[in-house]
């Protein structure tokens, strides 16, 4: 049984069909990439899976259990953790406290002293331990992304949703971030990632699905997806059009 099954999922905002009849499955330990141009419904799809939005139709099953329409904190307790496209650490809490929230409220729910130990371990893994006592507001962008990742991992997720984790990073930082993701997958984590930086996604994922105007137009290994005429049309067609207009 796949860990995540998305079945005929749809969500509209007014007259706009942001996600339309999308289905896919994700196996345990797999890294699945989602790509698509701006406004193709990637973030909406993410918000539906994470429980931030309720679908109009369709099912989302995590290890066989339907989680569609459940509130975000229940989805988290069921084992789905996420990071945000625009990072959202708890700015007024310390770095350690940020991670403790995930540990004490997520799927793990250990005692406080165990939680502190585990939170410190995660901070050490992500290289944030020296800053444990500082307010999160003082961190740089890459460190905030590390912190969000630590907070998400602290909940002991079965599935990790990364929403444009590389956005806003310089090439060196992007390489660091890719290393982090690779390590996670090597450690057995199941990851679903939306990414704008196509080469990073091509490099990390062994399977990619492509969304366009809310619909899934391709699903397969990176090379096959990149060669798919529909995908080329959506990406390069638009680019060529822009160039001719300019």
């Amino acid at each position, binding site marked *: 049984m796949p860990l995540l099954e998305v079945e005929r999922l749809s969500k509209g905002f007014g007259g706009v069909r942001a996600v339309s009849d999308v289905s896919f499955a994700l196996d345990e330990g797999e890294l699945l990439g989602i790509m698509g141009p701006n406004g193709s419904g990637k973030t909406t799809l993410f918000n539906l899976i994470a429980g931030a939005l309720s679908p109009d139709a369709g099912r989302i099953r995590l290890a066989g259990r339907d989680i569609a329409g459940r509130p975000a*904190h229940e989805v*988290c*307790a069921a084992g789905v953790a996420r990071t945000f496209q625009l990072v959202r*650490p708890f700015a*007024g809490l310390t770095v350690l406290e940020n991670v403790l929230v*995930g540990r004490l409220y*997520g799927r793990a729910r250990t005692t406080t002293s165990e939680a502190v130990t585990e939170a410190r371990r995660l901070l050490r893994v992500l290289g944030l331990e020296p800053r444990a006592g500082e307010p999160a507001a003082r961190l740089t962008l890459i460190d905030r992304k590390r912190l969000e990742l630590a907070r998400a991992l602290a909940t002991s997720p079965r599935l990790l949703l990364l929403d444009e984790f590389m956005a806003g990073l310089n090439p060196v930082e992007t390489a660091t971030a890719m290393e982090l993701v690779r390590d996670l997958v090597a450690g057995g984590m199941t990851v679903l990632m939306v990414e704008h930086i196509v080469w990073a996604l091509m490099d990390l994922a062994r399977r990619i699905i492509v969304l366009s105007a809310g619909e899934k137009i391709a699903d397969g290994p990176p090379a096959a997806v990149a060669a798919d005429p529909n995908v080329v049309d959506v990406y390069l067609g638009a680019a060529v059009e822009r160039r001719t207009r300019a």
Partner: protein
Amino acid sequence: MTAGGHERRWAIVILAALALLALLPLTAPRDDVLNFVFLILLAITLAESWNIVAGYAGQVNLGHAAFFGLGALVTRMLWTEGAPVLLAMAAGAGTATLFALVIGVAAFRLRGAYFAIGTLALGEILRTTVGNVLPEISTLPAATIASYRLTQRFYLALGLAAVSVLAVAALATSRLGLGMRAIREDEEAAESSGVGALSLKLTALALSTALAGLAGGLFAYYHISYYPSHPFGPHWTFDALLMTFIGGVGTLQGPVLGAILYIVLKEYLALRWVDIHLLIFGALFVGIVLLLPGGLVQAAERARGVLGGARRAA
């Protein structure tokens, strides 16, 4: 949680100060001294209770007076009918909390300014209703007045202030308090980290209104005569808000310091400039929010930072 040591130290300092105050009645002070300290203790309870919802869970409740008023109303009714005062106060607090939970389920659907306006309306609705239903002044019977002991009220106020400080100290260092602070910082991110925002906000409101209800009960036990709608007046809410912001919202010691400064200043200003003292408070509040959003606590931290910097430079 990491700031736990800090909060614990302050809790000890404040409780030690309150313990010292317990000796005050033994020195046979004038009644006006006891009355003055009583007002400060009541203010500490009110400010700390407001601070739980605003400072920890991050929700600005402008209907706090409703719960103070309900506590006063129920306590006064039961106590004057012959119930023991502590039992009457417990019933008052219970009523306030129950009402808060019913209201909270609806009100917490509102966010930010809408929650603030909604709760403000709630307080005003209750005040007007109570004013209409019970327009007569409530005065204690002559027999009760004859046996009135200020010292009892004073110790009750002292105990209640200590309970409030202990409650906030426990909250500040607990898993529960951490979850509330996460909601205050970013509700959506808290939810996706597993924090059930609605149930935590309701817990904060229940704790806050239980203390406000007890404070209202103390008010009803203390005052010889008042209009039943008086404890529902919006100034109870705004006093708590001002004290909390002046001292430092979301800290343990802030509301205590704010309450002391506020009551002292209010007595002094009211004596000298009877009518314009409210204007002065308004200006003070605007100044603090603009220049020192963290209140006295932040001012002290900054001063320490500047002094520390100067020492390092020297």
